């Protein structure tokens, strides 16, 4: 059975790599960099339906990679902070009858299909942000470059965070519950107040679980395609922090949401290679995340709790 799984994984990687080969053939690795007009390049690829010339394959996809890193990075960091604080509250501070209700509710939230978050985002959050939060002055200030419709970085990060935090809370709560209570009681006996005892003893003890939760959440955030496609604004644009608050409202695209947007035109040979290239990059980042998580957990083996 495990051999079969290994074969399937290798088969997927080989398939995606072969389909994306023309992209690497014409660009080397420099398609990961920026500098070109990504929108024009993709339009050229979509229009070139048979035997495209070599110049059509030219691609500089950095705005997509930047968008992916920006949204996933902020969402995971925000989510981790919220998850650790919430879990400590639920397990250590909340009365038992509150935890009994909250933990199943968190598990329920974790199982909601992500497209529902996308629907709420596009039907409620995007119009709200577009009509009530973004000021006319802000819209006018960037109108020559991009339109601020409400769909952009802020809504994407909010929905992504809401989507990945319940899983992290569930994982960390379980880990907190498995730390032997004698450890914390020992710290309290030594004179620490209960909250500091948690910070000094329990949290370091569950570091492997926190890292596992972060890796899981990152993987889910990286792969989130349809939901981000709905709320991210759909423009090959790199939001610039230098723009001030407008930075939060600028539209963007991630690797996964670009795959969703471009999937219909995939019969154009150049576009097919580009889309499979994005997919290959996503595969590699998933593997890299797993490996990093494993490597980071290695020195923490000594904290493995038993029972």
């Amino acid at each position, binding site marked *: 059975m495990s051999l079969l799984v290994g074969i399937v994984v290798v088969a997927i990687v080989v398939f995606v790599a072969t389909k994306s080969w023309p992209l690497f053939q014409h660009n080397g690795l420099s398609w990961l960099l920026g500098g070109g007009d990504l929108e024009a390049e993709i339009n050229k690829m*979509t229009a070139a339906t048979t035997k495209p010339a070599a110049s059509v394959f030219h691609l500089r996809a950095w705005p997509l990679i930047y968008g992916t890193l920006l949204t996933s990075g902020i969402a995971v960091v925000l989510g981790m902070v919220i998850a650790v604080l919430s879990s400590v509250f639920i397990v250590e501070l909340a009365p038992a009858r509150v935890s009994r209700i909250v933990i199943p509710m968190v598990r329920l939230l974790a199982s909601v299909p992500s497209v529902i978050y996308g629907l709420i985002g596009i039907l409620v959050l995007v*119009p709200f942000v577009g009509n009530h939060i973004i000021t006319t002055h802000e*819209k*006018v200030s960037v*109108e020559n470059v*991009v339109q601020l419709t409400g769909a952009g970085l802020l809504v994407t990060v909010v929905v992504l965070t809401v989507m990945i935090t319940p899983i992290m809370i569930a994982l960390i709560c379980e880990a907190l519950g498995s730390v032997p209570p004698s450890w914390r009681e020992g710290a309290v006996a030594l004179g620490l107040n209960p909250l500091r005892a948690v910070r000094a003893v329990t949290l370091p003890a569950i570091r492997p679980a926190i890292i596992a939760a972060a890796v899981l959440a990152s993987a889910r955030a990286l792969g989130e395609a349809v939901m981000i496609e709905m709320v991210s604004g759909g423009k090959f644009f790199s939001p610039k922090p230098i723009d001030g608050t407008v930075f939060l409202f600028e539209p963007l695209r991630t690797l996964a949401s670009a795959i969703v*947007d471009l999937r*219909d035109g995939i*019969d*154009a040979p150049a576009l097919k290679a580009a889309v499979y290239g994005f997919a290959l990059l996503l595969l590699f980042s998933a593997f890299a995340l797993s490996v990093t998580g494993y490597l980071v957990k290695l020195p923490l083996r000594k904290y493995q709790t038993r029972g």
Partner: protein
Amino acid sequence: MHRIRRLSVALTVAGVVGVAAPAAASATALITISGATSSYPLVSLLANKYVKLHPKKIRFKITQGGTTVGINNVKNGSDTIADVAQEPSGADAGLTFYPIARYAICVVTNKSNPVTNLTQAQVTAIFTGKDKSWSGIPGATQTGPIQVFTRTAVAGVLTSFKALLLEGKSVESSATEEATEGQMRQEVENAPAGIGFLSNYQANKGGLNSVEFNGVACNQTTAASGQYGGVAVFYEVTKGTARGAAAAFISWIDHSGAAKKIIASQWIPIG
């Protein structure tokens, strides 16, 4: 044990026969269609009627994706017919274009912004980005920046819109792109400062303010009489000349009264 084994063998045989028999008996032809989201409602209605008239003989699989996607699919053989909402171009050699209906492209704004009329000059200025504010437009109740919605590059309606209503120019690059007509309608419905363009079928669904172009309203009557300037054609496109079931379907659309009735309900018949 013995009885269970006999029972399971019997069930398996029954299952295999149950699956194989209908599969062998059905000799239904399959027509696969993909392409424009603007002609999808019309082609779906026509296909449904056709299946009702020829039960068990024909099956349709209709997807969308945009005009360019449909053309690509027909070129590489993955689909039989493409729904196309734009005129044939030089890149379409080897394909046959069969016109089935005409449609009007309407410029629309949000219901809260009841602009009555826009001249050609105003439409060009707004969509190319030269004019960015509603405050200079007579009849507009909005005063802030104009939010321009357009279609993605694969849309036939966009190509036709540029040719017929935008003097051949391109929409500004900062405009928000929508993948389907339905999404275009939804976005303009939700954005008070929004403006966009879509087929008269979608504009008729309500919830939007349809703008007169050069003093002519955008509806079936003005489009049929030739008064309205933004009338384009829906084509069914095949690789080479249409053959077999596809040819029969297209011929039925062009000649039958039932098809004409469907087309005349929301669109404009050819000729």
